[in-house]
Structure formats: C-alpha cells, structure tokens
C-alpha cells in the first residue's frame, strides 16, 4: 500500500517538474524571438547614427538621393513603398475575399475545393524573382498598351505595374486566412438566418462578414506586411528612379528595392549608413502599420 502511494506521488512530482521545465523552455524560446527583434532594431539604430548625425530629421522628407554629394532623402522611396503596397492591397482585396467566401462557404469540401485551395496557396510558394520576370516580359507590354490608351508616357514599368505584381503575390495570405475564419462561423447562426428566409447573399452579407471581420482584417494586415517588404519582384518592374512619383503610372522606387540595389557598392560611411537608416524607416513604418491594424482588429472584436 505504502509503496504504491510513494510511487504515484513520486510520479506526480516528476510530472510537475516536467511541466515547469516545459513552461520555462517555451518562455525562453519566446524571449529569444523578442531579443532578436529588439536586437535588429538596436543594430539598425546604431548603424544609422552617422547618417542621422549628418542629415538629421531632414532625411525623412528630403527629395534628393545623391550618393555623389552625400545628400540623402528618403521621401520618394517612402511614398513609393506606401503607394505600391496600398494600391496592391486595394487590387487584391476583391480577389482574396471572393476566394475566401467561395472556398469557405460555397464550396468548402471535395476535390475541387481542395484543388483550388492548393492552387491559391501555390501562388505564395512561387519565388518572387519569377514574378519579376513574368512582370517584365508579360505584364509590362500590356500595361504599356493601357498607358497609350490613357495618353500617359508609355513606360510600361512603374508604380502601377509593381502594384499588380504585388497584388497577385499577396492574394493567398488574405484568402487562406479568410477561408479559415469563414469556415468557423457557427452553423446554427447561419441556419437561424436561413430559417428566417434569408438568401445566401443575405447570409454572407449580414451574418458571415460581420462575424468574421476581425479575422478578415487580420488577413489583410498580413498581406500588407508582405507587400511592404517585397524587394526583388518590385525592383524589376518599378523603374528604379529616385524622382518623386507624380501619378500611379510614374516610375518610382521602394525602400526595400533601394537597399537591395545599392547596398553592395555603397562605398562611403554616410552612404552605407543612409541605406541602413532606410531599413530602420521601413522597420518603423511596418511597426506603426501593425499597431494601427491591431487596434482596429481589437475594436472589431469588441463590437
């Protein structure tokens, strides 16, 4: 009898120790990630000091990027990044929501649904340089024809073309997340609406979308994060000019693309530091957008 109690208490003792160790391990791994992010932030800040010292706050709204005379202004690239990302988001939303609703509500099971789901997810798996090439060879001539109809300078490459490429690249993120949340809408809610005589469209509009809006928005936020940081595909079709874009058809440049283009040959301290500061600005912009996004999601969830 005694021995039995002893044995079981020893085991539960061991189990508790195991629990504690497991919890500590999880916490440690999580802390490592936090340290990593803070470390990146710190490194970017420290390495930006020469540029901050020599250019000051003017860096943010300066319109000239001149490595020869050591004058750097990030404004055109900041605008380029925000313009391409938000335009891409606007283009992608109808597609990603349509995919999410179709695969989540109309056709959520069966081989066709699976096939479509995997195909959409495959879009995210294609390397971005391939999108760049495709854009350069297929999309650019099409956009050029469109521009000739609109009577703007037919460059073919520029903000608009980049936005289309980006839109295609980010569709799967919002679509996959949207499909998951739409699938999770409790069926008794939907059945209730149907029993009151609602049509399918009315159910989607009045039940599904309001119920899932915070999840759908989180998907959009994920897409936006991807669009902000995309480099290779954008740099191949945006035109890479440091002039401020005047319309959505103008050529421009993004922060990520400038860093990728100029980092290897940046041959003086302030130049290199200005490029790193560009990374810092991109980092801060991403953080700000995420914070705003999270607060919107919270408000949705509280409704």
């Amino acid at each position: 009898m005694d021995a039995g109690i002893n044995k079981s208490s020893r085991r539960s003792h061991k189990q508790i120790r195991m629990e504690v160790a497991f919890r500590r391990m999880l916490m440690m791994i999580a802390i490592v990630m936090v340290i990593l992010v803070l470390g990146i932030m710190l490194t970017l800040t420290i390495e930006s000091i020469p540029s901050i010292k020599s250019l000051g706050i003017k860096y943010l709204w300066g319109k000239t990027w001149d490595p020869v005379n050591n004058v750097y202004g990030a404004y055109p690239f900041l605008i380029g990044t925000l313009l391409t990302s938000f335009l891409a988001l606007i283009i992608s939303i109808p597609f990603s929501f349509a995919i999410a609703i179709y695969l989540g509500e109309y056709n959520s099971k069966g081989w066709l649904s699976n096939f479509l789901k995997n195909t959409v997810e495959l879009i995210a798996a294609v390397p971005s340089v391939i999108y760049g090439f495709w854009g350069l060879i297929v999309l650019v001539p099409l956009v050029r024809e469109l521009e000739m109809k609109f009577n703007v300078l037919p460059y073919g490459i520029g903000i608009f073309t980049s936005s289309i490429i980006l839109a295609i690249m980010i569709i799967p993120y919002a679509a996959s997340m949207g499909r998951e949340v739409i699938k999770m809408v409790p069926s008794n809610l939907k059945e209730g609406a149907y029993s009151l005589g609602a049509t399918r469209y009315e159910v989607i509009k009045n039940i599904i979308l309001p119920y899932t809006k915070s999840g759908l928005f989180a998907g959009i936020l994920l897409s936006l994060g991807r669009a902000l940081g995309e480099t290779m595909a954008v740099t191949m079709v945006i035109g890479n000019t440091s002039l401020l874009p005047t319309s959505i058809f103008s050529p421009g440049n993004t922060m990520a693309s400038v860093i990728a283009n100029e980092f290897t040959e940046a041959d003086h301290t302030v130049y290199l530091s200005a490029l790193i500061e560009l990374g810092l600005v991109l980092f801060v912009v991403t953080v700000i957008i995420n914070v705003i996004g999270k607060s919107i999601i919270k408000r949705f969830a509280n409704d």
Partner: protein
Amino acid sequence: MKKITQILSIILVTVGFMSSTKAQDDKTLLGAGSTFIYPFFSKTFSQYNAKTGIQVNYQSIGSGGGILQLTNKTVDFGASDGPLNEEQTKKIGVPVLHIPMASGAVVLTYNLPGNNNGIVLTPDVIADIFLGKITKWNDPRIVSKNKGVNIPAFPILVTHRSDGSGTTAIFTNYLSKVSPEWKTKVGAGGAVNWPVGLGGKGNEGVSGLVKQTPGAIGYVELIYSLQNKLDYAKVVNKKGKVIAPSLASVTAAGNVKMPEDSKIFLTDTDAADGYSIAGFTWAIIYKEQNYNSRSADRAKKLLTLLWWNIHEGQQFAAPLNYAPLSKEALKIAEKILKSATYNGKPILK
C-alpha cells in the same frame, strides 16, 4: 618569359617542398571584390591551381565590399573597378597598391526599329541625352553625325543601372570628363542621382528595358553586349575618330602615358584608336605585406599569383571578352608589383 618560368619553377618546387610540412590553409589565397572581373579571375585562378596547386578563393561581392574586406584584413587581395576613394584611403590607413588586371568597357546600346546601319554618337550628344536635354532621336545634333542613316523620330528613353556598379562609375566618370555641366550637376560615382530615365538591375535589367522599349538607350558592359549580340553605338573619341567598341580598341585606350600608381580611369583616352569609355579593374593589396603576422611565404605566393595573372594569365582575357592589358599598362603593373615589400624588402626581384 624564360626568367618567369624559372621563377615559377623555383616557387613550384619550394611550394611543393613546403606543402608537405605546412598546413592545408597555406595553399589557399583569399580575394574578394569586383563582380565584373569574376569570370576572368575564375578562369585564370583555376588554371593557376592546375599548374601550381595553389587555390584562390575569390568572392565576387562587389568592389566596395572587396575594399572593405581588405581594410578589415580578412582577404589577401581586393579587386575593384575604381581606385580607392578618399574616404577608403583614409580608412585603410597604410599605402596600398593598385595593380591593373584587365580592362573593360562600357557600350551604349539602343533600340531603334528600322535602323540597321548602326549609329555614331559624339561625347556632347551622349552627355546631353543623359542630362535629358536631347529628347528626340531626330534631334539635328544626332542626325548631322549620321548622314544617310535611317533615324526614326522616336522620343528617347534613357535607361541606367539601378544598382551601384563599376560600370556606372566608368560611364559617369566619362560623362564628367566630356561635359562640365554633368560634372557640376551630377558627378561621377558607382551610383549617382540620375536627372532622367529608368533604372534596371544589372546589365540584364538595362538591356531588358532597352530591348522592350523602342527609342530606348542605355549603357552595359562590353562583354555583356558581345555575348548577347546587342546593338551598340560607335563613339567619337577625343582625337575626333569614330571608334567602335571592341577588345582591340579598349586595349588601345590603355596605351597612353600612365601615372606611376596606375590609378586612372581610361575614359576619354588620348590614344587615337582607343575607345573612349573604358576602365581598368585593379587587384588591390597592401604595399607592406608583413601585417597581421602574415608569413613571408604567403606574401610571396600572393605576389607570384598576381605576376602570373598579368603575364601568362592575360591569354585567357580575350576569349572571355576582356581586353588584355596594353604594353604601357603591363610595364606599369610590373613596376607596381615589384614595389611591394615584406619588412621593407622587395618581394619580387
């Protein structure tokens, strides 16, 4: 020649003798820098390895990166398409040697449908196109130099490199020499603030833009244009002669009186049959080779390698579309290599 083979065989024997006792590491030399010279280096270094057993690990990380690695003393030599600038010279602190390895050139490629006879451009026209002052192909200044050639009335689309590069450094250096306005407004460098035009990443990015857009003009490396059979413009040089870019005319560009340290851009050359937009790629080493407790043996191996590269190595240049060093450049390069020292004593005799 005989002397060199003698030296080489002596070194070979010495190396062979020593390698039995020394660590594996001693047979590997490290280099980093210019991407432009990489195909040439990888050919000559593999030949050299087959001959001597010495391995050269060259990383093509870009000229700026190569100079940084040399400054940090993590490589035996750097390679750069431009000489060290003021800041880099100050940072490195001690004298370094620039040894020309081969020359390259920049050509102007264009897309003019209906033109099969090629075009000729003068320096001032090139500068004004890239300044955005000449905007149409049928500008009188272009047409007057191309009598009897079909030049359509397209608007000009300027394209340039979006990434920092030695190609851009050579081209903007040329523009600064031939146009005072370019010099004050834009200047020269691996990346500049372009007054007009679109940027493409790498030679392939620029040529892609040019191929796609009727009326476009851009600049790419000579090698790239030869390999891809692009149309390129003939350029009027300083002596007023119309010169087509070729390996011969690029080598000829280097046949001029050169400063003792070889640190010049060959652009806007005085040579009558030289092509105007050309430049060296240099290997860069410390003048005093005894640093970081390097062995005298390692220093000697490095110097011998570079010596071999500017002599026997040059035969591999032309097949790979690099312009071999001119006689004048070779003389200077030999002199510079001989000025390298170990503990103040010359390494090569």
